[in-house]
């Protein structure tokens, strides 16, 4: 597309990046039909091509309105559109820039600000969130069903392996996951232990920074990122092979650290190194698969798998988990439209409940169409979101693997 960015942004790093992205978009609209929000709402401006155009107009000097902001807010940032785009348009980056500019110009109402702050604070404050989840569980039987859905009974996490192997990896201290489903990291630790790797857990105040980043709290995100880098650095120096993200939503952020910190003189290099070491748990396990596969007790359960957007569109990791699940012997059922988002999308389910619910029910319909006995996925967000709409167990796939190795 032809562009002509306004002076306020033209020569800034953001402006230069946005300009290059906008120019690479040819307006073909191949992305639009695959966009979940477009599918639900049917409005050009609630699809990627429309959003790109809106952002272009804002960056070219048009005054954004509340409506503009709403169209951008409704985007799940699932990046499905990136997978569909033949021109390699980096929509995810562009929408980040677009959102921050629009927020600067349009602002947020007091209520919106409050909701967003509460969300951030609650999810980021470990003790608080832990307590909330505990209380929630204790009173779960008494909760109205809509809320009950968000508070799932806890699976027994089991024990963390104690063996000290020569090979080590670091696991991210994840903000919500440990409270909501600690069993995932424990399972990962046990699986890696079987592969001869010790998984190290360092407390760094939690969170990869993605949450703040997506709620447009840039400084807070930077603080989180720096804290993580500082906490891991000694272990990296000591030879840790990888930083493992067990939630694909975090993995994708970890891999972006290099880009995210590129303008920070003190951290740019370290961040690049961290990003290079960052792996999604599925990549790490795939590398160890030959030896693990031999130890697996086969199962022929019928399961269906939901690949999170952050995995398939964000990190462009497709088919890896599915291949391993098949190797285990699972009867992996075909799922229609597996490229679509489930509607969880970080805090989206709280901020845009209507669209989110619609996407959840569509997703569950396709996941359960063939009658699975359980559902697997790769991200805590998707897991709890989906679980809130079905009585079938929804698990992280690493938990399934852990069970087959026990």
């Amino acid at each position, binding site marked *: *597309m032809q562009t002509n960015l306004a002076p306020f942004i033209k020569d800034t790093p953001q402006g230069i990046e946005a300009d290059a992205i906008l120019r690479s978009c*040819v307006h073909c609209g191949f992305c639009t039909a695959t966009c979940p929000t477009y599918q639900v709402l049917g409005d050009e*401006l609630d699809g990627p091509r429309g959003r790109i155009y809106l952002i272009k107009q804002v960056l070219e000097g048009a005054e954004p309105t509340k409506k503009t902001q709403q169209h951008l807010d409704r985007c799940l940032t699932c990046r499905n559109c990136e997978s569909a785009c033949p021109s390699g348009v980096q929509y995810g980056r562009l929408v980040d820039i677009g959102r921050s500019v629009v927020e600067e110009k349009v602002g947020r109402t007091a209520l919106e600000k409050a909701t967003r702050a509460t969300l951030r604070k609650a999810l980021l404050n470990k003790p608080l969130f832990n307590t909330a989840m505990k209380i929630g569980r204790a009173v779960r039987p008494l909760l109205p069903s809509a809320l009950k859905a968000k508070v799932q009974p806890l699976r027994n996490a089991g024990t963390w392996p104690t063996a000290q192997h020569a090979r080590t990896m670091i696991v991210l201290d994840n903000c919500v996951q440990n409270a909501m489903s600690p069993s995932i990291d424990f399972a990962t630790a046990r699986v890696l232990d079987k592969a001869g790797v010790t998984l190290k857990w360092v407390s760094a105040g939690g969170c990869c920074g993605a949450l703040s980043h997506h709620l447009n709290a840039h400084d807070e995100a930077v603080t989180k990122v720096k804290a993580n880098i500082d906490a891991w650095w000694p272990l990296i120096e000591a030879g840790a092979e990888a930083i493992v993200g067990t939630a694909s939503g975090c993995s994708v952020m970890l891999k972006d650290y290099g880009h995210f910190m590129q303008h920070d003189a003190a951290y740019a290099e370290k961040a690049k190194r961290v990003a290079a070491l960052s792996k999604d748990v599925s990549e790490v396990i795939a590398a160890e698969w030959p030896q693990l596969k031999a130890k697996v007790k086969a199962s022929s359960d019928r399961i269906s798998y939901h690949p999170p957007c952050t995995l398939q569109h964000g990190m462009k990791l497709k088919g890896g988990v599915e291949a391993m699940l098949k190797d285990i012997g699972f009867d992996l059922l075909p799922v229609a439209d597996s490229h679509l988002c489930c509607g969880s999308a970080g805090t989206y389910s709280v901020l845009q409940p209507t669209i989110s619910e619609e996407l959840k029910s569509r997703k569950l319909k396709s996941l359960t169409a063939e009658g699975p006995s359980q559902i697997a996925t790769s991200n805590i967000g998707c897991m709890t979101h989906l679980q809130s709409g079905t009585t079938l167990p929804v698990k992280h796939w690493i938990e399934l693997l852990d069970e087959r190795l026990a």
Partner: protein
Amino acid sequence: MLVFERPSETAVASAVDALRKDFGERAVTSHSVREHHSHGEGMRDAGLPDVVVFPETNEEVASIVKLCNQARIPVIAFGTGTSLEGHLKALYGGVCIDLSRMNNILQVNAEDLDCRVQAGVTREQLNAEIRSTGLFFPIDPGANASLGGMSATRASGTNAVRYGTMKENILGLTVVTPDGRIIKTGTRARKSSAGYDLTRLYVGSEGTLGIITEIQLKLYGVPERISAAVCQFDELSNAVNVVITAMQLGIPMARIELLDEVQMDACIKYSKLEGFAAKPTLFMEFHGTDAYVAEQIEQMKSITADYGGSDYRFADKPEDRTKLWKARHDAYWAGMSYKPGNQAFATDSCVPISRLADCIAAAKAEIAKTSLTCMIVGHVGDGNFHVQISFNPDNAQEREQAETAAAQIARIAIGMGGTCTGEHGIGIHKLDALKEEHGEAVDVMRTIKKALDPNNIMNPGKTIPMN
């Protein structure tokens, strides 16, 4: 140009109010929605409508048009907005009728090989929904356009040689006339319409005579055997001569598409085609029974061999074929992403088949006079080809070169007994070329326009030069 007085602000405001009252949230005045409806593809010089309305029934469309006719406010129909000649620009503001909510397939009559659809149904939607019947609708312009828009622009696609264009495949229409009446032309009976052939008049009228709300379309059985093949050449002229020979021998190709070396390069990069060289190329497809397809291929092979063509690469599996034709359909986008940030003109000449080689050579010579990146792609089986002329819109000199070359190529085609537009239509960009091509005959077209739309509210300023 004409000759249409922009309605007064108060007239517009009261029409908008009335529409809001009737349509609620389906009458939209936000800037971004109006902007989205103010242009097609191609040159995106926008002219904003005052309001965009999303009707759902024929009667709703009629009520909008009636209101506009009374208030003398322009009405512009919007399908999917892929037209290339400025068809959608609201030169005088007005009401844009977006037909996307009229997207129901009303009937599929598998035995009669026809169907009736609302105007907002897109060609891909129709084919997806009738797939299970073993039938298909063949007209496939390079964009997933609405069937209403395709009717309004008389669109055609890659298989016009075999299946014709929109005009041969429309049995009848429901049209809302400029005074807000709903009429039906044609019937289920394939070959009938009492009186003048009005269907043919509305097909291709680019929204200037009425709003098409329903279309009765012919469908075809999916052939027993479909085989696609690619053949490459060192010389563009050889590839063109193959096409001419095949047409003169009457080989009933379902598709035969030409891409020059630049276009091929762009497509290889954009659609990630493997194993092809950036050389002049023919994409071909054969339909029929096994024996029949085999014979067509043999005949074609002997022709391509005469002209030094490469061995054929076949794509018989549906997924390979889909990939190949998708690459062809995406040629325009491939061209656009070849030079990010650039704009492009796509010429659309069509000449008698025997002049095709001369015309393409002359077009190439014209391009060579510029410093611009140009590529050629075309449904050459019917003498139609596009030169996509890419230019930097911020560079006045490039823009001028592009405009000159495009106009010159149109003139060359007209001089060879051809037309400036084989499928994209007139819109606002080709009004002058239409005069050059048709001379006084334009007067009759204008008289018809004035007779059927006396207040000139239907897409004013398009298609027919009014002075």
